[in-house]
């Protein structure tokens, strides 16, 4: 079981994975109005799994915008370490956030379950739904 730092969220969260295998910039690569990634994939109600984060200080407002427009993902899982901008956006939007889970072999549509235990959050992959 893979565990990371529990930054935002609690309890148990489940959803289908949408995987981005590079460092994502929320400004420019995520459209909060449609809930879509730059490549057209929808992240609304999904578990967004990304390798890492990069980009502008306005990113926090883009993440908050996902909540504002009703397109928030169920959780964001970051393989590497997250930055203050994405973290502050997730706190503002109350989007569950886990980072430092290490390399994750997961593909789009796989069912991911996240269980929070104090300062850690552990992931279970349940295969495609």
């Amino acid at each position: 079981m893979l565990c990371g730092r529990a930054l935002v969220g609690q309890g148990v969260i489940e959803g289908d994975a949408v995987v981005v295998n590079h460092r994502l910039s929320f400004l420019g690569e995520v459209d909060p109005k449609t809930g879509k990634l730059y490549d057209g994939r929808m992240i609304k109600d999904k578990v967004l799994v990304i390798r890492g984060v990069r980009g502008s200080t306005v990113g926090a407002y883009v993440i908050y915008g996902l909540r504002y427009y009703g397109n928030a993902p169920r959780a964001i899982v970051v393989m590497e370490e997250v930055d203050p901008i994405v973290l502050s956006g997730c706190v503002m939007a109350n989007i569950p956030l886990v980072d430092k889970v290490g390399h994750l072999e997961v593909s789009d549509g796989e069912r991911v379950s996240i269980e929070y235990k104090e300062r850690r959050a552990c992931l279970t992959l349940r295969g495609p739904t």
Partner: protein
Amino acid sequence: MYLTKDEEHMLSGEYGEGVQEAMRIIVKVGELLGAEKLVNISHAHASGVSYGTIGEPGLHWLKTLASKGAKARVYATVNPIGFDPFKIIPPVSKEFYLKQMEIMKSFEEMGFDVTLTCTPYYLREPKPLERLAWGESSAVAYANSVLGAFTNREGGPVAVAAAITGKIYEAGLQLKENRRPELMIRLPQLNDYAEYAAAGFRIGEIAGTKIPYVTFEKTPSHWEAKALLAASAASGGVAMAVLEGITPPSTYLMNDKMEKIEIERKEIDELIDNIEDVDLIYHGCPHVSIEELIFLNKSIKGKVKKEFWVSVAPKLYEAVRPIIRELEKKGIKVLRGTCPVVAPLKEFKKIATTSAKTYFYLKRKGFDVTIVRLSEVGSVAVR
């Protein structure tokens, strides 16, 4: 993280939901950065104030925070907006105008001083070792490097949260042990504001987010240092530079094992042009000081024949009305509370600016833009 009783109360909601939300942000980000405690700040400065930058979500967040009774606990200022609110330049749609006014109203309700400037240090100058939580990369670099105050480069919402709690995490540049230069950059002889800006552009490219130690042939004025720092914060992510002869020695630690890099004269000259055929000349990024206004007024001898913008903090404009009137008589548009970096510019194709920061951002937005020397702006404008 260790929290005082009062900080615990903020986090548990005893001061209301707005303060609680702000404290959650500060504590979470502080924990992420490994801070052991929070520190009191004397001044917060919020970036991300233009409707063009933060949009509907940003407006909604600020409005919600204000409606929950959040109030700034310390002196708090805000960045420029998408147009001059007195002259409505550049022109914006009615919707943009109204939304921008709502953003300003939310800040006002929260007790911010709606200064609309990227140079809050011209309104109240922080002292060495003073703790701040500032957004706006150019102001952050100026505070750390010229004034010797302590601030990290905070994201927009974090600076707002810091204003409301009066606190920031003790990490990064808030700790003296982290204020240590990592590489030494030697500059050639420079003679113009725009040359210092171009040098800053090169410094940012070399240093990235590291702290450079910069040596000069001739110590720059504070406003030339401002041009240099703003550019280095844009092309790289410089939050602090040690400027030889300027940065107060008590505010950083020295490093005697630095890699040495020299920037050559031609690397500066390559960035600067002297073109005549432009539809906008722009000076004032970051917003101008009184010295710059005096310099401009002296060097521009007659009526300008091209669109010429200068941008300034609204309060400074009020303080130096006579010289502004002289500049305006020469046909210069002195804009308050805005700048081309955050304004929705449309009608201009070729832009000449003294600012390497403006050059960096407008180029990325697809404009044809060149850097021009401040000492040559006058002669280009009147031809």
